[in-house]
Each structure stands twice: as structure tokens, then as C-alpha cells.
């Protein structure tokens, strides 16, 4: 159990800066996910907490104790790697015993054995203890890697993309397993991924990071429903959020937003946006709408007055993804039926109930 805090961490490499002034604090027992694309600085961040890398500037704390100068093996944190980093010719048991060797005062042989057995049972790999690692499947290796990090009962778990090499089918089951484990162990966990589904599923909170800079810290619902900028809005959700470049206009003392690519695409923003948008009249802004928030029908009706033509249709499991053209503007719609829709057919869209995500031209949320 521990609280991890990073204060103004920066990491410079010879020619690039991997992290810029990163600060955050976990609560005790929290499952914190760091989400970002390749090269965002996620793994660097983990390595700094693990003590594998020393930050150029800034301090690292566990439970208010400054551990920046403490070597990695003396920090009670356990890191699992994307490629598992197991010893292939060792048995599962030998791999699990290995972390004890790095401790200052390792426990007795009996204690070690009983801890290994406890953890192995919890992860259902007790039948594999005498197997060599190179004889195991990917999912089993994943579990051994996890088990190895658990034997020392660390204060903090650090996970580096643990599911990225796991087959899509198993990934779902592994997520469920991590959930169960997290609720049993209640150990502070920092989990790095580029997969937004994992982040939404596992995180108590999510930190979205891009190019070494924290973009947003929030619960899964906050990240999904109140992104602070266009980058965050695009990182979560499939199909990607629709983003339209629009002009703010004032018509009969009412604020109206009109797409620059298609004059048919206009929005009358909700009352609480009316006031906020007054300062933007005549300016370009960006309007985001999530594809599943758009209603559609095959015939026009009172609400669905926006006639569009189907440019593309894809079946998404039990749902459908329509790409519709309205003038020059492409609109993605996620349907909730698996009815197949023909190309070039007309569909009528209802955007009246869709929540609008409004951003300034620079990409920053209008608040």
C-alpha cells in the first residue's frame, strides 16, 4: 500500500525531451492508467518510478518519502515488461524466486517457497511451477511475469503494456483477471497502455499523455465525456469522434454554429453554451460529435431532417458504421442495429440530441 507522487519530472535525452514537467499523485491502492501513443513518454515514466532511469529534473516520492536517489532494487516496486523479460531456460519457480535475490534481507527458503505457492495458486499457474518458461504459451508467460512481480508483495505494481502481445480473445479474459486481482490485492498500480479500451476498463483514473506532456487526468467517464482538448477526444472511442470545422454566427440574437464545408450542417448549441460562445462570433471553432450519439432513419421524420448519402457501410459486430456525406463533410455514425445499409442510399440524421464537444481552433476545449 502506498501513494506514489511525481513532482515536476523532466527527462532529456541527447537530442529529445521525453518528459516535460510531469506531476501527478496516486491515492493509496489506486489503479492508475497512463494512456498515450507510441513515443509519448509512457515507458520512460514507469522506468523513472522503478528506478531504472534517473530523471533529469524533478523528484519521485513514495508515501511522502523522496526516493529519487534510491537504487531500483531497494525500492519496493515491481515492474512487468511488455516482452515479459523472463529467463527462458529457468523454470517458472526459479523465475518467481529470482526477485528475492535482489532484496537487502531476503526471507528464508521456506518463506520464499510458501509465498511462491500462494501467488502461483492465485494466478492458477501452480501446475506449471516446474515447467521451463520457453515451453509456455503467451498467456501463461504473461501470468508468470505477473506472478514474479507479486511474490515480493511490492508497495507498487508497474505494468508496461502487459496485454499488447496477447491475442484479442484472451485480452478480454486477461482484463477480467487483472480486475479480480486488483480488487483482491488493493495494491497501488500504475499501468501503461496505448489501448483506450484497456484504459477505460481498468483505470480508477486515466492520465492521457502526448509527447511527454500530460494532457488530462480524470476518471474514464471524464476522459470520454469531457476531454480537455481534441487530442484526448480522439484518443478514446471507436469510430473516432467526428470533428467539424465550423464558424460561430449570430442569427436573430441566437448563436448558431455552421460547418465551413457544408452549410446544411448547422447546430444551435444548448443554452449553457450560448453565453460561452458569444465571444467567438465570426471565429472558427471545432465541433466534435461522437458517432454513437447520432440518430438515423431510412426515411425523413420531424427530427431527422438532415438528408445524407451513404458513402460506406461497415458491419461492426452487432452494430454498423455508416460513413455519410453531407456536402463536403464526412460524418461517421455508429448504429445500434446490424441492419446492412446499401451504398448511395439516403439516410436521415438526427444530430439534435447529440452532446457537442466544442474546441477552440487551437484544439483547447471551450469552457
Amino acid at each position, binding site marked *: 500500500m502506498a501513494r506514489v507522487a511525481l513532482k515536476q519530472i523532466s527527462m532529456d535525452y541527447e537530442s529529445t525531451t521525453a518528459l516535460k514537467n510531469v506531476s501527478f499523485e496516486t491515492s493509496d491502492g489506486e489503479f492508475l492508467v497512463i494512456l498515450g*501513443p*507510441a513515443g509519448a513518454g509512457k515507458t520512460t515514466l514507469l522506468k523513472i518510478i522503478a528506478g531504472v532511469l534517473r530523471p533529469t529534473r524533478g523528484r519521485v516520492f513514495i508515501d511522502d518519502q523522496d526516493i529519487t536517489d534510491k537504487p531500483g532494487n531497494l525500492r519496493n516496486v515491481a515492474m512487468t515488461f511488455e516482452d515479459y523479460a523472463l529467463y527462458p531456460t529457468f523454470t517458472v519457480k526459479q523465475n518467481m524466486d529470482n526477485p528475492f535475490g535482489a532484496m537487502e534481507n531476503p526471507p528464508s527458503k521456506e518463506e520464499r517457497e510458501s509465498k511462491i505457492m500462494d501467488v502461483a495458486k492465485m494466478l492458477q499457474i501452480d501446475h506449471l511451477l516446474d515447467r521451463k518458461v520457453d515451453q509456455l504459451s503467451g498467456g501463461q508467460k504473461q501470468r508468470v511475469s505477473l506472478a514474479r512481480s507479486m511474490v515480493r508483495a511490492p508497495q507498487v505494481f508497474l505494468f508496461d503494456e502487459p496485454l499488447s502481445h496477447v491475442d*484479442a*480473445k484472451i485480452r*478480454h*479474459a486477461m*482484463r*477480467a483477471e487483472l*480486475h*479480480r486481482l486488483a*480488487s483482491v490485492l488493493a495494491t497501488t498500480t500504475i499501468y501503461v497502455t*496505448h*489501448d*483506450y*479500451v484497456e484504459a*477505460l*476498463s481498468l483505470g480508477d483514473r486515466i492520465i492521457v499523455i502526448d509527447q511527454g506532456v500530460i494532457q488530462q487526468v480524470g476518471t*474514464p*467517464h471524464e476522459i*470520454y465525456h469531457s476531454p480537455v482538448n481534441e487530442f484526448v477526444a*480522439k*484518443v*478514446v*472511442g*471507436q*469510430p*473516432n469522434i467526428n470533428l467539424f470545422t465550423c464558424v460561430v454566427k449570430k442569427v436573430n440574437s441566437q448563436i448558431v454554429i455552421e460547418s465551413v464545408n457544408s452549410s446544411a450542417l448547422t447546430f444551435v448549441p444548448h443554452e449553457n453554451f450560448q453565453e460561452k460562445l458569444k465571444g467567438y462570433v465570426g471565429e472558427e471553432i471545432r465541433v466534435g460529435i461522437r458517432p*454513437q450519439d447520432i440518430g438515423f432513419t431510412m426515411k425523413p421524420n420531424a427530427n431527422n431532417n438532415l438528408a445524407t448519402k451513404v*458513402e*460506406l457501410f*461497415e*458491419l*461492426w*459486430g*452487432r452494430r454498423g*458504421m455508416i*460513413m455519410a456525406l453531407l456536402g463536403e463533410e464526412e460524418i461517421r455514425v*455508429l448504429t445500434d442495429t*446490424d441492419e*446492412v445499409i446499401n*451504398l448511395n442510399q439516403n439516410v436521415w440524421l438526427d444530430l439534435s440530441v447529440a452532446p457537442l464537444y466544442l474546441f477552440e481552433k487551437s484544439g483547447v476545449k471551450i469552457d
Partner: protein
Amino acid sequence: MANVTLENVWKIYNSGQKNAVEAVQDVNLEINDGEFMALLGPSGCGKTSILRMIAGLEKISKGVIKIGGQVVNNLSPNDRNIAMAFETYALYPHMNVQENLSFCLRAKDEDPALIDTRVKEIASALHIENLLDKRPSELPGGEQQLISVARAMIREPNVFLLDEPFSHSDASRRVEIRTEIKRLVNKTKTTTILVTHDQHEAIAMADRVVVMNFALIQQVGTAKELIHRPTNMFVAGFVGEPAINFLRCQFVQDNQQSKLICLDAQGAFPISKEVADKIQELGIHEVMVGIRPQELKISTSEEGFIKGEAVFFEFLGEEGNLILDSGSAHITCVTDPYLEIEEGKKIGLLADRSEIFVFDPKTEYAICHGV
């Protein structure tokens, strides 16, 4: 434009030797003119061997492949009028995009004005006009993939082959790349064959999908057929996400109401007389029931076909996944994303009976779709 026919096609590596591998076994397949067909399966299932035999990169061990009615077994790849876009792009690094695209037309000594028009057409169709003077190395993976596709399609081939084209592009860009390619294919109406291990991709893009495993075709069908009418447990399990719930059940016959009673989970499914007769005919007492997570509905009471306890709920943006423990079984149920449910709550699950599948656990074949 052409149809592609495979008749009793085999691929045997190291034929006649001890370490012979039958990578493709007796495949029969008709791909219609202008059709978008996906070959879907796990690695090693034989899908890439089929593609390579159609392309002429791999010898056909046994059987016949026809393109546009013409047997192509002994034709070189050049003479088949097919084009292939590879997983690794295979672009010329020292040429810019314009030169990459026009390369094969220039090699054929086509009229420069015509080449120019064709490059412009294909670049505009794939929305890559602004990349024409860039080198491949200056572009991200997704854009390189589009250029690889453009270079293949500029030749106006009879058949267009795509080998795992999206595995290198990042997830959010992948959907956009996919739609660009699909749009181009829709427009040109070129017969297209896509090889992929990603069921979502196959279902999203193709008119029909060939599901393969262990060198054999498991099922050929539209996406909807694979989802609602899987012929066996492999197809039921491989297609669809999250994976289908399989439940071992005991067949209990009764004149009033025959049932399938769950062995690991808590619950039972009433079945029609017709289904009971089918199971009885097979002389088996244990069956495997399959229900897709999207078909399970939370009942308003604790009663239902399946009874369980909520273990955890995942908010995934567009949908929610609820995981339940029922007896010793874990069950996944797709819900709306805003479900509010506390852990440990007792829940009953219902499903439309027409979407409950029954399989023979020995042969793994479907006994019926709907109970």
C-alpha cells in the same frame, strides 16, 4: 474484372518427405466478379498460402486455380493481371510517391500524359494528392500503406490481393485507412481478396468471409451468417467480440418441456420438441450451448435462463461489458455503457431463444441455431 475459382486446391510443403506439412487441404472456393472476400483465421491456418498461390508466388501442389475462367496454375505472376499490397509495403525508398505510383506504367512505356492522369486519379481517390512529392520514409505507416495500395491499383488489375494490410498502422488511424481502401474498391469494383487474422476487419470490410483453421475451410458466409449461424464451435468462437459464452449443459428430456441444464453455470434453457428430437437422434446427453454476449439481456428480476452475480462492469465508451460469475463459469454480457450495477448483485440473464446455439461437444458441429 474477373472471378476467381479454386478447385480441390492443396498446398503441401516438403511433399513426400517426413516433415511434409499440408498447409492447405482440398479447398474449393468461388469468388465472384467484383466481390470483396476475406480469408480469416489464426496464424498457420493456410490463408496466406492460398493468397500466395492465387498470386503465383507459391506453386499449387494439387488442384486448379482459375482467374476469369482461365487456368493460371502455370502462369507467372506477371501474366495473371493481379496486384498485391503487402504487409511490409515494399515501396521504393529512393523514389518519391509520384515515382513509386507511376513506376510500373513507366516500365510499360505508357503515354506520359496517360500516366499523369492515372496517378492523379488514384491519388485523389485515396486522398493522398498532397503526398506526391514525399519520400516513403517521410511518411507514417498508414500513409505508406495507402501508397502501396495505390501503386497496386493503378495498374487496374483483375484481382486485388491484400495481405494483412493494417497490422502496422495504429488503432485510431486503422479505421480511416480501411475506409479509404474500401471506398476505392467500391468505386473500381475490383475483385478483392483480403487476408487477415482480425475478425473485426474481415467482417467490416468483406462481402463474404472464408473462415479457416488447420488448413481447412470451416465456413464461407456473409458476416451475418457467421455471427448468427456459425457452423461449428471454432467459427462461433473466432468470430465476434467479446468471445461467445460456451456453457456445458445436460440434455434432460421431458414430455412437457425438455431442457438443457447448465453443468458449470447455474441455469437451464427450455428447448422446443424439434430441438430435443435432434439431440436425441444424435444419442448424446451432454451438449455445448453458445450465446453471444450481445444477446444476453439483464432480466428485471433475479430469474432468467442463467443466474449469476455481477463481478465487475467495464465502461468502454460505446458499450459496457458486464462480467458475471455463475457457478464456476464466467459469463460476459454486452450492455449499454451507462449501466449502474454494484458488485455482487444477483442477476438473471435472458436471451432471445432464436439466438441460442447448440453444439455437439465431440464433433464441435452446430446441432441447431435457436432452441
